[in-house]
C-alpha cells in the first residue's frame, strides 16, 4: 500500500506527460524530424540499445561522469574541510573558487579540449570541475555548523584529530555534504555532455551531434536525450538512497 502510494503519483505524472507530448504531435501535425511521437522515440530507444549503437556511447559518458564525480567530490571534501577549519585557507582559496565558479564551464570546455585532447581525461576534468563547487561549499557549511558541544565532547574523550574528523565532524555534516553531492551528480551529467561537444569521438553528447547531423536520425537524438536523462535520474536516486540510509534514521 505504501509502495503504491509513492509510485502511483510518479506513474500518473509520466502518463500525463506522455499523453501531452502525443497530443502536441497530433494537433501540431509535426513531422518526426521536428518532434517525433513518444512511441516512435520509445521504439528507437529500444532499437538503439538492442542493436548496440547506444551502449558504447553510454558507457563512455557514464565513465566520464563517475570518474569526474569521484575526483571532484573527493577533492571538494578535502578543500571544503580546509575552508571550514582554516581562516588562512579560506582567504587564500575562496577568491579563486568563486572566480572559477563564475566562469561558465561552457566557455572553459573548448580550452580543456585543446589541452587534453578528445580522450577521457578532458571530460573527467570538466565533470570534476563542475562537481567541485557545490560539494566544497556544502562541505564547508556542514563542517562549520557542527555543534561545538560535540567537539568539546571529543576533546573530553581525548579523540585524535583524525577521530574527530571521521567519527564526529564528517558524520555530523553528512546531511549537507550529501545535499551538495545530489546537486553535483546531476551537474556532472551536464559536464560530460558539454565536454563531449567541445571535442570528443565517443559518448552520448557525440551521439546527439551525429543523430542531428550526418545520420539525421531525430528519433535517435531523442532516444539519446532519454538515455542522458535516465542516467541523471538514476545517479540522483543513488545519492538519495545513500542519503536515506546514512542520514534517514536521525530525524
Amino acid at each position, binding site marked *: 500500500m505504501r509502495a503504491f502510494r509513492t509510485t502511483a503519483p510518479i506513474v500518473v505524472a509520466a502518463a500525463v506527460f506522455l499523453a501531452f507530448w502525443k497530443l502536441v504531435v497530433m494537433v501540431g501535425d509535426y513531422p518526426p524530424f521536428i518532434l517525433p511521437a513518444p512511441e516512435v522515440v520509445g521504439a528507437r530507444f529500444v532499437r538503439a540499445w538492442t542493436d548496440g549503437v547506444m551502449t558504447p556511447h553510454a558507457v563512455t559518458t557514464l565513465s566520464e561522469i563517475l570518474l569526474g564525480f569521484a575526483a571532484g567530490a573527493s577533492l571538494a571534501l578535502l578543500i571544503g574541510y580546509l575552508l571550514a577549519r582554516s581562516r588562512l585557507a579560506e582567504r587564500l582559496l575562496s577568491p579563486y573558487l568563486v572566480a572559477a565558479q563564475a566562469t561558465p564551464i561552457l566557455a572553459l570546455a573548448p580550452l580543456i579540449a585543446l589541452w587534453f585532447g578528445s580522450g577521457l581525461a578532458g571530460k573527467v576534468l570538466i565533470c570534476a570541475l563542475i562537481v567541485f563547487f557545490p560539494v566544497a561549499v556544502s562541505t564547508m557549511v556542514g563542517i562549520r555548523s557542527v*555543534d561545538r558541544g*560535540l567537539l568539546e*565532547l571529543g576533546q*573530553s*574523550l*581525548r579523540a585524535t584529530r583524525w577521530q574527530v574528523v571521521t*567519527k564526529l565532524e564528517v*558524520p555530523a555534516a*553528512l546531511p549537507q555534504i550529501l545535499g551538495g553531492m545530489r546537486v553535483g551528480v546531476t551537474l556532472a551529467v551536464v559536464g560530460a555532455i558539454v565536454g563531449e561537444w567541445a571535442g570528443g569521438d565517443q559518448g552520448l553528447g557525440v551521439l546527439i551531434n551525429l543523430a542531428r547531423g550526418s545520420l539525421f536520425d531525430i528519433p535517435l537524438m531523442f532516444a539519446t536525450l532519454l538515455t542522458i536523462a535516465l542516467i541523471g535520474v538514476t545517479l540522483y536516486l543513488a545519492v538519495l538512497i545513500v542519503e536515506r540510509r546514512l542520514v534517514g534514521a536521525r530525524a
Partner: protein
Amino acid sequence: MAGGSSTLNAIHVREVTRSFLIDRQPLVAVEGASFDVPQGSIVAIVGPNGSGKSTLLRLIGGLLQPDSGEIRIGDRPVEGADPRVGIVFQEPRLLPWRDVIGNVALPLELADVPRKRREERARDQLGLVGLSGFDGARPHQLSGGMRQRAAVARALVREPGVLLLDEPFSALDALTRERLDLELLRLWERTGTTIVLVTHDIAEAVFLADRVLVLSSRPGRVVADVPVELPRPRDRSGMDAAAFSSAAAAVREHLETGAEAAP
C-alpha cells in the same frame, strides 16, 4: 573502581585563575580558587550565572588550562583532557546518527577497545542507569531524561575515578530531575566515584553533596564552603528537614552576599 591509595581520586585545586578575552577585554572567570575534594565525596558548586562555575568544572576536567595555579587529581597534575575524568554536560550531546549502545561505547571506541568488549561494557553501563533494552534506540526516540541517563552511562563507561557534571539535569522537568538525582546517588554509592557537580539549584546541591562551594559572580571566587551534615544513604522522604533547610539557608545567604559583592 580505581582502587589503591585512598587519595588517588581526590581533587586538589590551588589558587586557580582563568580569564578569557571577550572583545579584546580580559574577563576574569575564575579567580584564586582553592579547595579540595576528598576521594569518593560529592561536592556541589553553586553560583549565579556568569560566576565561572562551568569554567571551573572544565578546568578540573582539563578542557581548559588555568592561567595560573594548579589542579591535581591524586598526586598527578591535570594537563589536558584527563582520562581519569568522565564528564556529563548540560546537554546530552549524543550523536544522533548512532544508536544508544554506539553512543555509550564511544569513549571505548576512541580508546581502540575491540567492538565486542566495548559493547559488553556499554550494555552493563546501560543497565546501571536503567536503560537496559534501549541499546538499539536512536537518541531522538528517547525522552530528555533517558538521553541524559545515556550521557551519564557514556561518562562512566571508562570507569573514571572522577565524575564531573555540568548542570546535568537542569533542562529536565522537576520530577525527572529529582529521580535522576536519586539515581545518581545510588550509582555513586555503588562506585565510590569522586563527584563534582555544578548546579544553580540550591536544593539539588544540598541533597546530593557532602559540601557546597559557593562562587561569587564575576570574577568567580569561592566565597563559602558549606558542609552538609545529612546522613547517607539519602532519600527525600527520610530526610532530616531541619538539617536540610539550615544547610540550604546557609548556601542561600552566601549566594546573596556573593552576588552583592560583585560590581
